[in-house]
């Protein structure tokens, strides 16, 4: 089920057209589809490519916001409990610690605990010695520790599950479809002008309600309707380490600042984030710079000293879709609250709403608010069920899935269930060839790659990485990238030269994240990658790709 042409042949207008394929867009598509609306979701790149895929993957308990932003904290803890149930295959219940270091003010701890309790978050101060027993990688010099119900969430899996559920309920998903403009008739938005990057063509699509769920890019979408939404782009940089140093989320117990959260996830852990205001014009070009690397390493080491000797895999940066409210230069004090704009009321423009602000944690609630408003406008009275019904992948228990695919070799089976939840049952009739390993770091099989290409809207190797973790492990795609490119040729309808092109784009994208931290073993691997791909294989970027990278 790759991108289809249904949209272009569809004559009836859609009930809802959602612009943006991040968690919020996908969540809104799910909610709308479940309430029986004819739903189309458009995404200009791949799903989860904006802020959704460029954060910690922290399943916030809300503690972090308790002191400064009570409303967000309350939303967080509620959604935390919902996601632990409906998206259990995307979530790890790791719990977290808020650590007070000797250089921090211990009196902040009591204020923190008080605020958490007031927001309904169940936290508990524990003896630093006990904290170190629970999490041996934590800094041994801590003078205070608070246990919080933080966890981790895989944003790629979460977004995909929402999309799969939306599709099960009849929604249409079009990735690589970019909105170029909004179609306006008198005081109403009636459709969107889009560019299909796959088939390289422009078309107009009509809908009753157009939802702007495009995160930081929402400012630009609103401009197409001559509306002004002032976003506050705050860049956040993070570093990924090559193995999982900590089992629990580690936070600094102080006012939010640079590099004060260390989150475990899959086989890795990551430290973040920095926060700097960037001009809106630059939001598509985010690079981690050496100063940010220095800060993240210096501060990260304070949470867990063993990070110093842990290999860094890559750095990446995202842009928080904050809605500007004052002239705070760091963006840290801008509300993380949800912003739902009914442009009919706000600007006298019908058929157009914007859902923005918020956080990955509250994506479902944002979707619920947006869908409630859409339903009100369309006189649909179906109630929201997204908090009650488990997402695809989370419907069976691990044991139940395990039984279904018991014939798959155990190493592949375990990682497939971990990644795909009950969707791993698609691998049940794999042959030996489908069970061969594509990515040895992350134990991804050829069968899983095949399933992703055929069923999960994968257009290129970078999309494949987001679905399967191919190339996310220690080698950062050194060997698996070429294997995956070969399979891409087999499983997608794309010709060999397109797959080759996808391979060089993939490697270049990996390099973007490796470059800021390319010393030591990382530089060794990079040199090896260049020798293999450019040297032995003679791979290069095409003229067109070169032009794009120079832009």
């Amino acid at each position, binding site marked *: 089920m790759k991108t289809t042409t249904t949209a272009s042949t569809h004559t009836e207008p859609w009930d809802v057209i959602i612009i943006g394929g991040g968690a919020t867009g996908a969540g809104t598509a799910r909610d709308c589809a479940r309430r029986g609306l004819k739903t189309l979701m458009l995404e200009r790149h791949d799903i989860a490519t904006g802020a959704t895929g460029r954060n910690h993957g922290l399943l916030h308990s809300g503690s972090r916001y308790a002191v400064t932003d009570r409303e967000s904290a309350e939303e967080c803890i509620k959604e935390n409990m919902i996601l632990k149930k409906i998206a259990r295959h995307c979530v790890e219940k790791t719990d977290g610690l808020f650590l007070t270091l000797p250089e921090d003010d211990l009196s902040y701890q009591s204020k923190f605990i008080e605020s958490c309790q007031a927001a309904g978050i169940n936290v508990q101060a524990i003896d630093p010695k006990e904290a170190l027993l629970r999490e041996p990688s934590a800094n041994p010099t801590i003078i205070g520790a608070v246990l919080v119900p933080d966890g981790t969430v895989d944003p790629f899996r979460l977004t995909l599950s929402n999309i799969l559920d939306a599709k099960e309920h009849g929604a249409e998903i079009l990735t690589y479809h970019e909105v170029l403009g909004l179609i306006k008739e008198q005081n109403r938005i009636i459709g969107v002008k889009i560019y299909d990057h796959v088939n390289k063509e422009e078309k107009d699509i009509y809908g009753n309600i157009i939802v702007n769920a495009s995160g930081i890019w929402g400012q630009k979408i609103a401009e197409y309707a001559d509306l002004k939404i002032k976003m506050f782009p705050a860049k956040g940089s993070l570093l990924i380490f090559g193995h999982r140093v900590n089992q629990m989320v580690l936070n600094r117990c102080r006012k939010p600042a640079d590099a004060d959260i260390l989150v475990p996830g899959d086989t890795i852990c990551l430290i973040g984030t920095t926060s700097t205001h960037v001009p809106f014009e630059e939001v598509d070009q985010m690079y981690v710079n*050496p100063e940010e690397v220095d800060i993240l390493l210096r501060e990260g080491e304070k949470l867990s000293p063993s990070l110093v000797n842990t290999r860094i895999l890559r750095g990446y940066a995202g842009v928080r879709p904050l809605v500007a409210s004052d002239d705070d230069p760091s963006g840290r004090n801008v509300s993380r609250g949800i912003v739902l704009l009914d442009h009919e009321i706000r600007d006298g423009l019908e058929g157009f709403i914007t859902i923005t602000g918020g956080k990955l944690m509250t994506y479902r609630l944002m979707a619920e608010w947006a869908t409630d408003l859409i339903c009100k406008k369309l006189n649909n009275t179906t109630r929201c069920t997204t908090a009650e019904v488990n997402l695809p992948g989370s419907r069976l228990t691990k044991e139940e899935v395990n039984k279904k695919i018991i014939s798959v070799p155990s*190493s592949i089976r375990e990682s497939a269930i971990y990644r795909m939840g009950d969707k791993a049952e698609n691998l049940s009739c794999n042959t030996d060839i489908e069970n*061969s390993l594509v990515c040895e770091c992350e134990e991804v099989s050829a069968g899983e790659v095949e399933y992703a290409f055929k069923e999960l809207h994968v257009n290129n190797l970078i999309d494949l990485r987001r679905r399967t973790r191919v190339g996310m492990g220690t080698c950062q795609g050194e060997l698996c990238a070429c294997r995956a490119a070969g399979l891409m040729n087999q499983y997608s309808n794309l010709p060999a030269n397109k*797959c*080759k092109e996808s391979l060089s784009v993939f490697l270049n994208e990996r390099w973007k994240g490796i470059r800021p931290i*390319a010393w030591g073993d990382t530089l060794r691997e990079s040199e090896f990658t*260049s020798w293999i791909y450019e040297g032995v294989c003679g791979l290069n970027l095409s003229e067109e790709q070169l032009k794009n990278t120079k832009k």
Partner: protein
Amino acid sequence: MTFDTVIIGGGLSGLISGIRLLQNKKKCAIISSGQSALHFFSGSFDLLNFLPNGEKVAYPQKEINKLIKNFPEHPYTKLGENEFNKLTEQAEQLLKQVGLHVQGSSEKNHFRITPLGELKPTWLTMPQFAITHNDSLLPWKKVCLINIKGFLDFHPEFVSEAFKAKGVKTEIQFFDLPELDRIRKNPSEFRSTNLSIILDKESSREKMIEDFSVFSKNSDALILPDCWGHKNSSLLSDVMKEIGKPIFLLPTFPPSLIGVYTQQFLKDCFTKLGGTYMLGDSVTEANIKNNRVTEVFTKNHGNIPFKADNVILSSGSFFSQGIIADMNKVYEPVFSLDTDFLEKRSDWYNRNLFENQKYQQFGVKTDNNFRGLKNGKPIDNLFVTGAILNGFNPIKEGCGAGVSILTALYVANQILIKEQTYESAGQ
């Protein structure tokens, strides 16, 4: 332990200088930590494909003066035109002497065919590997590309697409043996090294002849991934005779069998000539007195020093840890030799992976005789060769193997001349 020369690093460069010295009756030891860049060898040695400014080189011998005139830091510039030409011939001779019957010459580059079907200029290519002498023309009208069923480290589709663009028709076929199912059961075992053990068995000969004659019916040649013929050298030539069509090999993704084989072959030459090859050992520290290396200590030999008149450092680039980068600098870990690198880390890289990455030119500084510099001064008996050297980009210029081999021969010759001078002075 006392030797005439101790060589640190058992890759291409170290082995070549070792063999050259042993051929001249010198007592040599190589200390090798294990894997070398030969393990991802393409099957071809490059000499010089491009100048540092990107200008194409077709005739290395004739065009070397352009490099020498304009790029003073390059190892080839230190050799000079005459020496460069003399050494390339010596290298070709040495490989022939030891029994590596390679194709090509330093007068004119030929083209190797990459695992993706691209053509890349090169100097010498291993026998049986596919080459062409014209970069826009392949020597076949139609070829049959064969892969092993389920092998993910070779993709004939890419080769096919590139061949079609050059007007060559292709056909893709898959070869299989019942015995291969055994390694298919273990998802990570289906790699070139394991495959070759089964494919090279005498028992596969019959199936090969049978299948390959059908596959090659309408083709001028058969092209296979490099998974055959290393354990059973007559297999491919026998099959060729039977089916009456030529068979060529293409390199695969690592592990490169031809690389493993070449490393092993050269190592065997070295030990047969009487060399001592310390595998899995690495140098921990060294003593320098009166501007000479007096002792070298290794991990496995603890406080028993290696002593030698001359020491050659051929420990490779970043990958082999001949040089190491930390957040702020690039250093050479054994002797703390002077290194050449840019101050600001952000200057080390280009944003596009496929453009010139400056870090690849970093390395150890030497004088014009390839003696390692420490605090600006050459150490009398410490020579540096191969990928660890500064001033060249092995990938962009296509000169990695050439620098490794030529500097190794140059240094070995220097050592031999020096000894001769000592000997004649002593007489």
